[in-house]
């Protein structure tokens, strides 16, 4: 699954010069947790103002939201992601940079992806996807070779080390085949899924 599969497409933008009170009103009216601040000119970065910014930087100090501007509290530049980034990498990026939300950009603003989107719309529960599994296979293989050299080719430790390699390889091929099943469907398969009663799609069991 990719960022574009789970992102929220309804995005509301705001001008950096708007007041915080305006931003709060928009957040409340639209039921959102963040607004995107669009670039002012080509080369200007995207920005974002979130519910957290408003509470931490305005409400917490009793400042007057009508007298403060979005540009005083927004995050700009903000971290942006591309629509084809895998969901597991979006989660990893969020975790490493301690963010919860990022605009999805490719040429233009396509949507926003948040921790809630990952939790609610991705398939990480049904299909947990191990990251960097190919790298882990390489490491396990090197370790197995070292163990076998030290303890002997027929030692139980050597066999156990190779079992680890084999398990990882199986997990990797499992992930790949699952991906193929969903992404690499032939157009005929897609057609039959959409038109299960079509003559060409019948399966004869005799």
């Amino acid at each position: 699954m990719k960022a574009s599969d789970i992102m929220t497409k309804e995005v509301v933008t705001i001008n950096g010069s708007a007041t915080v009170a305006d931003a709060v009103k928009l957040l409340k009216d639209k039921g959102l947790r963040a607004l995107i601040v669009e670039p002012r000119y080509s080369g200007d970065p995207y920005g974002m103002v979130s519910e957290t910014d408003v509470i931490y930087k305005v409400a917490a100090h009793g400042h007057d939201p009508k007298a403060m501007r979005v540009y005083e509290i927004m995050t700009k530049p903000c971290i942006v992601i591309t629509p084809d980034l895998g969901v597991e990498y979006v989660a990893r990026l969020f975790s490493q940079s301690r963010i919860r939300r990022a605009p999805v950009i490719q040429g233009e603003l396509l949507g926003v992806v948040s921790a809630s989107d990952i939790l609610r719309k991705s398939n990480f529960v049904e299909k947990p996807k191990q990251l960097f599994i190919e790298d882990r296979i390489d490491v396990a293989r090197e370790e197995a070779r070292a163990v076998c050299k030290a303890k002997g080719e027929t030692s139980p430790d050597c066999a156990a080390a190779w079992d680890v390699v084999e398990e990882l390889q199986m997990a990797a091929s499992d992930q790949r085949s699952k991906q193929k099943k969903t992404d690499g469907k032939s157009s005929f398969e897609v057609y039959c899924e959409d038109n299960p009663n079509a003559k060409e799609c019948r399966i004869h069991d005799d």
Partner: protein
Amino acid sequence: MMQAKEIMTKEVVTVSGSATVAEAVATLKEKGLRALIVEPRYDGDPYGMVTETDIVYKVAAHGHDPKKMHVYEIMTKPCIVVPPDLGAEYVARLFANTRIRRAPVIQNGLLGVISISDILKKSDFVEKPKSDFDRYCEENPGAREARMYDD
């Protein structure tokens, strides 16, 4: 100033620390919540909390299997709790100082949960910000003008 109990969310769902992360995800999705409270196991045991951020940062980000991980491995316990009569602005300041977004409201038991969304959507910080005079008095409690006469 509005108090925590006036703006908190009263519908609270609890989860056991020994539940699996997959169970917690199912509950969060079903109830449309962002956090679950882990109740104390015995008298003197603290409250805990598990949020959608915990799940995304600690499980999804590593490709761990949520069916094989448990709530106690990723929860925050003890978590920061808020008394029901704390003013909304102080809740906001506590949240800002400790970098949290949500806390259970506790007084002789679990009363609710208060989040930054509750403060944003239900409190009156836009309509009634502190006046300059209020802020001056808070910064200079010894100033003559800041004295309060009670009679």
